[in-house]
């Protein structure tokens, strides 16, 4: 998944890089093409200038001849105008061809040739002005013989030939630049399209993978729900099994207990009979006057016989007290399983009223223990009334039962709500519970601390079972000699749902 994402990012980055490269190259090549075109134009311009220059020189020559023949002033002014334009044109040409050494040389030659020709013109004009036409004509002939105009033309042709060569070369260069530019653009575009194609392919592939993963996830969720339902059913079944088991076991344990107890009592009666006879026999042997034994009164025994009788009574006493204890434990288990099978009924409960009622029933115990019970404002909740009564009366009973001797009791019941749950606290200033016993006190038949109060170790186990069935949790904060706080968290809106349905 991660590798694929990295791949896509790289692909996108590559696409952008290609685009940037193409843009840069295009700009470079377009500039190159423009420069090349500029050079081509420049060459054409130079050629034009050469032609124009030659034309002006011709014009000056023909005007000079016309003047010689007619002496007409319009020829003179025409000649002067033409000569005046020649030198600036030469300068311009020299500047235009300054970039090319061959042309610079040609331009220099041209300038020399033209300067010579212009000098000839000036001298011709001087002869004409001094009215010596013959001198001027001779000069013209001389110039014709020297073919100075021809020299100018040759140099100009050389110039033009060079420019034409440049023109051809630059044209080719410009064409090449444009071809390269378009080739780069086409290749880049193709690359971008290819990258885009790959991107689309990858995106579609990952979209398909995602769809598959989603489908898988849905399936897994369904499976998970099914599994949870199955496990819940199993747990419920196991729980019911335990309930039935506990019920049957405790019930069937009672039967033999009745016998043990019954025949122990029978033995007790037998014991009385036996020792009465022993006493009677003992007296008969000792030939003492036989006293009349009144009913069940203990026979008057002496020495070893008395000891025997006492041992007998002690043994029977232990058996009976043990049976009584076992009976209480079995009854407790029976009551717990019965409680576990009771259907809970959610009703709206004014918790404060409920606890006030409990406090009223323990008012006598509270007065004896010099304890005060404070009830702070409590939230109303929807829950099972009887279960709630049992929970709080057990906790308040415990608080009253395990106060510190000689210290006036101070018990408070507090409540608050937090995201759908009501949190109740029953706090006391009693003898407290050693932290190592915090888990133990919630176990059935287990107690902690000084065992100076009657109890079976059932109350808190029962309370916790009830709280759990009501969809809540409970915990204790306590230290030895520093009081205890039992915290109960219950749903504010409890509905008799799954937990209750078939437990």
């Amino acid at each position, binding site marked *: 998944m991660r590798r694929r994402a990295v791949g896509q990012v790289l692909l996108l980055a590559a696409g952008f890089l290609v685009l940037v490269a193409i843009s840069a190259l295009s700009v470079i090549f377009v500039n190159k093409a423009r420069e090349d075109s500029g050079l081509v134009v420049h060459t054409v311009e130079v050629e034009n200038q050469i032609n124009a220059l030659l034309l002006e020189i011709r014009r000056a020559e023909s005007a000079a001849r016309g003047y010689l023949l007619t002496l007409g002033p319009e020829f003179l002014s025409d000649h002067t105008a033409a000569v005046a334009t020649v030198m600036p044109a030469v300068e311009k040409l020299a500047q235009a061809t300054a970039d090319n050494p061959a042309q610079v040389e040609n331009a220099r030659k041209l300038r020399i040739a033209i300067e010579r020709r212009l000098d000839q013109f000036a001298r011709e004009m001087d002869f004409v002005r001094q009215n010596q036409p013959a001198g001027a004509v001779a000069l013209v002939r001389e110039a014709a013989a020297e073919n100075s105009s021809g020299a100018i033309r040759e140099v100009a042709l050389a110039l033009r030939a060079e420019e034409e060569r440049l023109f051809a070369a630059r044209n080719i260069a410009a064409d090449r630049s444009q071809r390269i530019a378009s080739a780069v653009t086409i290749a880049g575009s193709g690359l971008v399209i290819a990258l885009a194609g790959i991107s689309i392919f990858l995106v579609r592939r990952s979209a398909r993978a995602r769809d598959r993963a989603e489908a898988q996830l849905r399936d897994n969720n369904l499976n998970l729900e099914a599994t949870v339902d199955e496990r819940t059913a199993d747990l419920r079944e196991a729980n019911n099994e335990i309930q039935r088991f506990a019920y049957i076991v405790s*019930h069937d344990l009672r*039967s033999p*207990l*009745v*016998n043990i107890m019954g*025949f122990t*009592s029978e033995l007790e009666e037998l014991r009385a009979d036996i020792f009465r006879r022993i006493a009677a026999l003992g007296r008969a042997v000792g030939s003492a006057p036989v006293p009349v034994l009144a009913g069940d009164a203990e026979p008057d025994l002496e020495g070893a016989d008395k000891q025997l009788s006492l041992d007998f009574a002690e043994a029977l006493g232990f058996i009976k007290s043990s049976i009584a204890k076992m*009976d209480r434990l079995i009854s407790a288990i029976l009551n717990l399983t019965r409680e576990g099978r009771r259907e809970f009924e959610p009703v709206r409960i004014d918790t404060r009223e409920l606890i006030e009622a409990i406090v009223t029933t323990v008012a006598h115990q509270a007065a004896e223990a010099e304890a005060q019970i404070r009830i702070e404002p409590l939230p109303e909740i929807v829950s099972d009334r009887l279960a709630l009564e049992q929970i709080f009366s057990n906790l308040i009973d415990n608080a009253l039962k395990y106060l510190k001797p000689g210290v006036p009791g101070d018990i408070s019941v507090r409540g608050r709500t937090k995201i759908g749950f009501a949190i109740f606290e029953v706090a006391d200033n009693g003898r407290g519970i050693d932290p190592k016993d915090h888990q133990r006190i919630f176990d059935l038949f287990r107690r902690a601390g000084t065992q100076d109060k009657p109890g079976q170790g059932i109350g808190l186990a029962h309370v916790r079972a009830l709280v759990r069935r009501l969809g809540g949790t409970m915990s204790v904060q306590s230290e030895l000699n520093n009081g205890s706080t039992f915290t109960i968290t219950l749903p504010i809106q409890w509905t008799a749902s799954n937990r209750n349905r078939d437990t």
Partner: protein
Amino acid sequence: MSKPVTIIMIEDDEGHARLIERNIRRSGVNNEIMPFTNGTDAVNYLFGSDGSALDHKGHALLILLDLNLPDMTGIDILRRVKENKYLKCAPVVVLTTTDDSQEIKRCYELGCNVYITKPVNYDSFANAIRQLGLFFSVIQVPSAAT
């Protein structure tokens, strides 16, 4: 009991049976007590081989019934007794360890006449049985329908 009433005691625990018998005797009841330790034997005796209970026509019976039997529940026996035209008049005393209120209600609905929970405390147990014996000595038991 004025007439020769036979007490049918259906109790799987022989110890219980012995204690019950002893305490009934202590209360001065001397009627014949027929003990059965399982449901099948008791049913065979009560209803006879053809299941009609014709054998007991005209006899006065009082049934002491435990609910937890090894081979069937006492409730089944109770139901059959109360459905039989000869036996339905016989008083049935359910004497069992169960003190479940649902169970008690069910037994009375089926026509049981007295329901007693066996207390584990022997004094209470003995006392209960003796009082039951005293009760037996004063109640009138009709003969089975003729």
